[in-house]
């Protein structure tokens, strides 16, 4: 198996390997629990390694195209037809960027789960669904086909909903899962309806081919509204956020970290639809302002709702909403400016900031949720008023929490600072008020995490909890994310040049996206 072969087939393999493993898991689970854990870990590590290899190649400038079932992976248009009719996977800079996030967080969540769900029943199904979530995320990121996007969206939603309800013996878990499922089905139906509108007009499902003939008629506008509403709802932007705190809070912590990424995959789909599918045909000023206002609302309302929370995971969920606002703001400013002369100066910086923030958020919010899970594992409660002095026994968790809290508040030298600075300085050129709100939100975030740190980790030790740190596998899961946070914080320049810039470029350059699939 040589390197070239692996590179050529990696887009399909990255989706197919976890899918195969997902259905092998329940069979192997019957034979041996240990073999099942080993299989899941091997698959997660393989996906991570192949993803890094593929991403490295994509970031150096090669967009990967994979046509399912064709006589040659790059033969997107069959000889007898004039349009792409097969399922095409298109991995450009942004897809590879998102794929890296999904693979990394899934690996951390998988390792963390080994100890975290050890005492629960139905672990075979847990790992099956965890792998299916990974499949859904990678599929949504890689696909170049609208209907395929819908299929993977459904896979992701159903797997997530089942995992949120994993601790079904607690009533609130079922409620959170039900809410998530209703929202997901509604969103998926809206997406399907929008795809139908486009398919009815153009007889095309391939995104690149559709982008080439897009006319922005009335029906296209309706489809755009449906897409934006559905994906903004799925990524938890205010005012469609009501499911986020309920379902993030009740899911097992490892799954919450994955759900954060799942929400960002919806964000990716939103950006992909706006930039690559509609591109310059749409009214960028209006749509840009809509996305910016969604971002501002999410940022501000999210963080103010987080302040009074007493449940540690609920508080973090509101912060997740608030951080999503930064990404919407950054990329929204990019959309607002695209096609204008200012785009090449600060528009592209805003987009880089927004996109960089996606990775940073996945790392530090994932880490924070994992530490919250570790606290829950030890003291069996999420209520901040019932815990204190945990730093005495859980030293490592306390350090990880501090790193995560500093990163989310945007304090140097952690990664949150790098992306937030890019956003502050670029959106300032559009309107200073945007920057001021963004900074204010950052300060409130810090205040809120100081409160959490104080009430959970400081003070005299609790009397009736067991001594000692959480099991090793949970610590390793947290270490993976911590290393990412520190590396990204120490070398932001390198990361922006080599990883974030290709991703932002891929999103902004619609012509290259079209050309990669249908040429010319």
């Amino acid at each position, binding site marked *: 198996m040589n390197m070239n072969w692996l590179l050529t*087939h990696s887009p*399909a*393999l990255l989706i*197919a390997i976890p*899918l*195969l493993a997902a*259905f*092998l898991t*329940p*069979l192997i689970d*019957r034979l041996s629990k240990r073999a099942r854990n080993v299989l899941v870990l091997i698959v997660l590590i393989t996906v991570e390694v192949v993803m890094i290899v593929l991403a490295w190649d994509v970031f150096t400038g090669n967009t990967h195209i*994979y*046509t*399912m*079932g*064709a*006589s*040659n*992976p790059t033969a997107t248009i069959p000889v007898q037809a004039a349009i792409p009719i097969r*399922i095409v996977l298109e991995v450009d800079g942004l897809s590879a960027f998102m794929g890296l996030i999904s693979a990394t967080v899934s690996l951390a969540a998988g390792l963390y789960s080994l100890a975290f769900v050890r005492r629960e029943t139905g672990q075979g199904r847990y790992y099956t669904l965890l792998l299916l979530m990974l499949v859904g995320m990678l599929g949504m990121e890689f696909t170049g086909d609208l209907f395929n996007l819908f299929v993977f969206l459904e896979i992701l939603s159903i797997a997530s909903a089942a995992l949120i309800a994993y601790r079904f013996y607690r009533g609130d878990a079922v409620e959170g899962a039900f809410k998530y499922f209703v929202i997901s089905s509604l969103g998926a139906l809206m997406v399907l309806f929008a795809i139908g509108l486009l398919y009815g007009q153009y007889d095309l499902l391939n995104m690149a081919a559709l982008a080439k003939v897009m006319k922005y008629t009335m029906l296209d506008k309706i489809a755009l509204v449906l897409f934006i509403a559905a994906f903004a709802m799925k990524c938890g932007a205010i005012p469609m956020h009501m499911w986020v705190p309920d379902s993030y809070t009740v899911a097992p912590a490892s799954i919450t970290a994955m759900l954060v990424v799942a929400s960002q995959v919806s964000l990716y789909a939103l950006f992909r639809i706006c930039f690559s599918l509609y591109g310059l045909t749409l009214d960028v000023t209006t749509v840009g302002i809509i996305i910016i206002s969604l971002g501002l609302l999410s940022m501000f309302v999210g963080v103010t709702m987080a302040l009074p929370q007493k449940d540690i995971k609920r508080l973090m969920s509101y912060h997740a909403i608030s951080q999503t606002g930064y990404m919407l703001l950054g990329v929204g400013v990019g959309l607002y400016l695209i096609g204008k002369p200012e785009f090449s100066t600060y528009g592209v910086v805003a987009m880089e900031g927004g996109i960089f923030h996606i990775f940073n958020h996945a790392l530090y919010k994932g880490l924070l949720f994992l530490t919250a899970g570790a606290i829950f594992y030890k003291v069996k409660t999420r209520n901040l008023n019932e815990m204190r002095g945990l730093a005495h026994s859980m030293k490592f968790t306390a350090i990880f929490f501090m790193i995560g809290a500093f990163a989310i508040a945007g304090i140097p030298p952690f990664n949150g600072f790098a992306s937030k600075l890019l956003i502050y300085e670029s959106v300032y050129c559009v309107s200073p008020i945007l920057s001021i709100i963004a900074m204010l939100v950052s300060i409130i975030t810090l205040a809120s995490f100081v409160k959490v740190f104080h009430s959970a980790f400081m003070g005299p030790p609790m009397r009736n909890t067991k001594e000692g740190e959480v099991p090793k596998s949970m610590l390793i899961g947290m270490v993976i994310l911590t290393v990412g946070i520190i590396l990204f914080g120490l070398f932001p320049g390198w990361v922006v040049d080599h990883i974030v810039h290709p991703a932002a470029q891929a999103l902004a350059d619609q012509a290259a996206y079209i050309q990669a699939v249908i040429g010319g």
Partner: protein
Amino acid sequence: MSEMSKIVRTISNSLFPFIMIYGLYVIMHGHLTPGGGFQGGAVVASGCALILVAYSSGWVFKKVKESNLSILESIGAIGFISLAFLGIGVTFFYNFIAGSGLLFGEIPPVGPNSGNLNTAGLLPLMNLSVGLKVIAGLFAIVAVMAFVASRRMRKK
């Protein structure tokens, strides 16, 4: 749910084979006529649900175990993905059987014809594995729901 009356059970007995044959036909002819693995599997599973309603879930669970159904379901899914993997020498999902003269490997006649079952390569095999997955999956869902509902009714 308790067992239903003798009349219902007799009618179900005589209907059951027809539903089965129709469902299996839809699966097997998936590459020639409308339908396919999912649709045919749903028809077969609804036939099984008929037996479930007529004979009570307790009776059904004496005959089949839920865990065996989920094994069948996994095998169906694994079969589908493995078939897709077999073509990876060219591309994932590559239909290497079509036109090769093996089973399902004949080249279909051009123009209006009555439909040759022995064509389409991987598609009928994939339809069969999807069919297996859907039969096992849907039946397991219906059976478990009926079982839980009947237990709850007994408690009341």
